[in-house]
């Protein structure tokens, strides 16, 4: 997910730099915006348990996103501590 996010951001830059075409530019901007929403959702719900989480483990080795796990941990733990207090 995150490499695609970077990819679509990069494409906006290369398009601005080398391609003078609004249609393509808007396409990449829209793609980047939606990828950004999806990426934020992934980070936000990273540690949410799910019944079918096994599918995730199957696919994980190919992508290997190690850093987002650590950054998202405080976010998902946050609500539980708040509820206790």
């Amino acid at each position: 997910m995150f490499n695609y996010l970077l990819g679509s951001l990069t494409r906006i830059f290369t398009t601005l730099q080398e391609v003078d075409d609004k249609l393509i530019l808007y396409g990449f901007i829209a793609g980047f915006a939606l990828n950004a929403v999806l990426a934020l959702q992934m980070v936000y719900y990273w540690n949410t348990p799910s019944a079918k989480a096994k599918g995730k483990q199957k696919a994980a080795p190919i992508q290997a996103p190690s850093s987002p796990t650590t950054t998202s941990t405080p976010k998902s733990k946050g609500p539980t501590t708040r509820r206790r207090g």
Partner: protein
Amino acid sequence: MDALRTAITPITHNLPGPIRDLGVSIIGDTCYKALLLDVDLENTACLKLAISKGLGIGIVGASSVVKVPQIIKLVKSQSASGVSFLSYLLETSSYLISLAYNVRNAFPFSTYGETALVLGQNVIITVLVLNYSGRASMAALFVAALATCVVTLFSQSILDMQQLRYLQAGAGVLGVASKVPQILAIWQQGGTGQLSAYTVSWRHSTVLS
């Protein structure tokens, strides 16, 4: 800066012919001279172009193998389960339109090359999926339809630029439309559920990027 320049110029002025030709073909005569021969790093226009080219070539390179894991998985399991023919069909169509649009506008290959490479891998995946789900004749039909589309999209006499422009806009809308249900579903379920980080990137990355 000057020390760097005096250290580098003897090397850049004596690069082997093929490397020099490659450099010129990527960033052009003017910028090759400015960046490599004169080592003028304050030439921001050329520097930005060089960075843009480097990133673009990187994306095209990475895209050349991006779907190989999926192909290997399909061939190993000999099963099409879990792979949606429709989503590949839509992605392939929008890639084909983008490719035709870019090629006919004669934009630099480094800015759209991934569409061509992913398109090729998508065609392989689609044919495999149809074969493994027992629809081999559909696979033949798919390839034939694809060939017809290629001829239509690339031919100036059949489809003029204005029509192609509409198609490209349609492909963009399709790309956006295909991601929105995903975002809403995650929102409603309050979690990414069975959609792994990988699947999400897989299905949604690419229509536009």
